């Protein structure tokens, strides 16, 4: 998923600063006994079609109204969902899921055929699913996706009504996360075909098999409600009767709604974060999202020199930037793979693969390295252009990086803040020298990041190449895929190489500090994808 930092109208900034001083006066305690949660989104719900969802509002809603074979909860723990159990063949290629008895919200049974239908629908080209590639390890996916093979040839079969057998083309240890994502949800053929291209375009034209069902969504409105689904297999553990969602675009409005008790949570922006740093209701939500600099080796030969890349990294104080400039809960990154994404034997991946020199700040050393690199090119000065998003965070990054790099001898930086789409176009076409790029992991496995920097990946905008890195990532996806320990070490080693060689310059790890009313308990949070799961939430 590409990251576009959400944009807000900055218009009320002045007024909000003035008003922020006083807060928390009018907390209403109405409805404290009712199991109703009031949640806020900053964007509309664009679709409820599991095959077509690309944004995190629909991902979040789908995650609470539908359910795949397995489900990922807090701490990235995978638990049984539609499948009560599953087994993996020794070669890691065949996954067998045993379904439990469960029903759609219209009373139809959820069968193995619904999974086969759903996956085939996601994979076939006419659906035009933008997240179909998540199923790319499933046998024949590529051929089906390109329309060269019939969808029925996809590596998923129903054995009777309650057994789903998936055949993979190569082992994928993180497949357990993939089967919990919306692209892999079951779909009720009868309903999909009944509504055609209006399927899941409003609350009535879809059916649900998860803890809640969607009501009140017309397809374009700013409010919708999830109500408890009485057909859900685990309904006795679902305590909330209703979750009201409302769209609020303005950060100050959101805070007022939170303070008046109309909203039970708020994701804070930088200014608000400062004011609520010590609040008891604050939850520092980490995101599996890293922002980093791509250094374009194809356009600027100097970046082929590791010293030049190291100099750029050492000239930027990431700690200072994230803590004092962004000041919205963001943290200094340890590498490309974000902290809190994956861990093994209690050790976080980012800690294990940490290379100090890859992110440390040392201006004197940076100057020295840069002079050497510059000298090697035979030039005495150079001007580089820096491309960033035109979002508030993008502008801050641009100012900070420009200022920091201008301290290097003979280096002048020209900054361009551009809209997200322009940034993407320029990235792909290589129209930049230095690019502030961002990535959010699709699933909680380091490979979601590591695969980006292999030499053939289209997201490797800087064209950094390292054959050892390529081999390690390839092994993790290939010969070591079934050996958890080896695979882990491959990826750790790859990350170390990336940072030692300074293939990219990590800038910051994004966070979304959230105030959550203390009466709200049991909301599950995870750092990727849908982020929130309300199935076990309740109001105390």
């Amino acid at each position, binding site marked *: *998923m*590409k990251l576009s930092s959400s*944009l807000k*109208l900055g*218009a*009320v900034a*002045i*007024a*909000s600063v003035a*008003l922020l001083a006083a807060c928390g*006066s*009018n907390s209403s305690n109405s409805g404290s006994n009712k199991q109703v949660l009031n949640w806020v989104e900053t*964007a*509309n719900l*664009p*679709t409820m*079609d599991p095959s*077509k969802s*690309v*944004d995190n509002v629909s991902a979040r809603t789908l995650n609470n109204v539908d359910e795949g074979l397995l489900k990922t909860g807090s701490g990235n723990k995978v638990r049984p969902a539609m499948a009560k159990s599953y087994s993996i063949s020794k070669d890691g290629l065949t996954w067998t899921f045993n379904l439990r008895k469960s029903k759609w919200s219209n009373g139809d049974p959820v069968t193995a055929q619904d999974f086969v239908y759903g996956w085939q629908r996601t994979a076939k*080209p*006419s659906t*035009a699913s*933008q997240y*179909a*590639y998540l199923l790319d390890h499933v046998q024949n996916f*590529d051929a089906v*996706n*390109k*329309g060269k093979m019939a969808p029925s040839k996809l590596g998923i079969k129903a054995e009777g009504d309650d057994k789903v057998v998936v055949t993979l083309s190569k082992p994928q240890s993180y497949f357990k996360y993939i089967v919990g994502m919306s692209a892999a949800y079951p779909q009720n053929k009868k309903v999909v075909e009944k509504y055609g291209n*209006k*399927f*899941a*375009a409003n609350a009535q034209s879809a059916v649900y098999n998860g803890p809640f069902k969607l009501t009140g969504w017309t*397809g*374009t*409105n*700013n*409010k919708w409600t999830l109500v408890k689904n009485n057909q859900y297999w685990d309904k006795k553990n679902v305590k909330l009767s209703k979750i009201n969602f*409302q*769209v*609020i*675009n*303005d950060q*100050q*409005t959101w805070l*007022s*709604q939170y*303070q*008046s008790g*109309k909203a039970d949570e708020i994701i804070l922006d930088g200014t608000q974060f400062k004011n609520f740093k010590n609040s008891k209701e604050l939850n520092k939500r980490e995101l599996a999202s890293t922002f980093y600099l791509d250094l374009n080796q194809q356009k600027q030969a100097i970046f082929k020199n590791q010293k030049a890349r190291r100099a750029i990294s050492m000239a930027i104080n990431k700690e200072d930037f994230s803590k004092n400039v962004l000041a919205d809960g963001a943290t200094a990154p340890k590498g490309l793979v974000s902290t809190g994404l994956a861990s093994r034997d209690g050790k976080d991946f980012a800690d294990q693969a940490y290379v100090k020199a890859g992110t440390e700040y040392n201006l004197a050393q940076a100057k020295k390295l840069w002079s050497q690199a510059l000298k090697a090119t035979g030039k005495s000065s150079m001007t580089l252009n820096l491309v960033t998003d035109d979002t508030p965070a993008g502008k801050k990054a641009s100012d900070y990086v420009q200022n920091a790099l201008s301290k290097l001898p003979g280096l002048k930086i020209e900054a361009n803040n551009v*809209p*997200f*789409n*322009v940034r*993407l*176009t320029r990235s*792909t076409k290589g129209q930049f020298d230095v690019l502030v790029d961002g990535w959010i992991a699709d699933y909680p496995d380091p490979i979601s990041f590591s695969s980006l920097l292999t030499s053939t990946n*289209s*997201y490797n905008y800087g064209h950094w190449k390292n054959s050892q890195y390529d081999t390690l990532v390839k092994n993790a996806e290939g010969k070591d895929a079934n050996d958890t320990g080896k695979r882990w070490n491959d990826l750790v080693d790859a990350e170390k190489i990336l940072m030692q060689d300074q293939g990219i310059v990590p800038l910051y790890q994004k966070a979304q500090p959230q105030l959550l009313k203390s009466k709200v308990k049991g909301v599950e949070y995870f750092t990727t994808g849908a982020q929130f799961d309300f199935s076990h939430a309740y109001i105390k």
Partner: protein
Amino acid sequence: MAKYLGKRIFYLLLTLFIVITITFFLMKLLPGTPLTNEQKLSPEQRELILKQYGLTKPVWQQYLIYVAGIFHGNFGTSFQFSDQAVSYLISSRIGPSLLLGLQAMIVGVIPGILFGALGAIKKNTWVDTGTTIVSILGISIPSFVLAVLLQYYVGLKLGWFPIADWGGFAYTVLPTLALAASPFADTARFIRTEMVDVLNSDYIELATAKGLSRMQVIFHHALRNSLIPVVTIIGPLAVNIMTGSMVIENIFSVPGIGEQFVKSILTNDYPTIMAVTIVYSVMLMVVLLITDIIYGVIDPRIRLTGKSN
């Protein structure tokens, strides 16, 4: 009159056509597609999605299809809401915008007239100074600041009205007030100036000399005559409210087209941007047309046909 009207409507349609053409080609110059995960898609898939949106045809064909579509009320499919027609997006959201606009117009203009008149009648007294200060504040405080102040004090502190959201008359109060401030102040200032002029004119002196009471003079002669020019500022006021609504709807989370316009710009939803631009243009042109017609009707000095001389 009918001929004049026909001519005006012809020009209106011509202007609209030019607006459509310019907007269309400007949008084509901008980067961006409905694709969110462009690089992960196979070329076949990319082609297929673009085809669904009709973006694989040459631009001139897309233009003709677009213009032909508009006559059938078809503005294409939204990039942001992949399953929704833009026409549905707009029709489901125009109600709240029109309601707010109308309320703001009424709440702004009528008290504005009374306030302005009061200032003129009590010229150079503390009343006049007071009304002038209030209207200057109304003009100089931007609507989005007023909106936040209203939200904080009236919504959060006093708890009289909902802070944001939509769902009944109570929800319209704060956004209406925030929107009405500027038309209120404009009208008040305008009326005061007009009325001071009228009160100094000979026929007012005559009316007073004939022994009419002060009230009769003010209501039958002065205010009535000062009202005619007010009609001329209704057009600009409508523009004011429309542009204001984008910010105000955003702040109060009103599900209207102003809020949608801002979102579609932020998400590069070109079909929606185009359609909303067209809708705004139509609304504005219709308001101007109506203003001109009313002006001709109430002020006999204006000749609509231009033939009388």
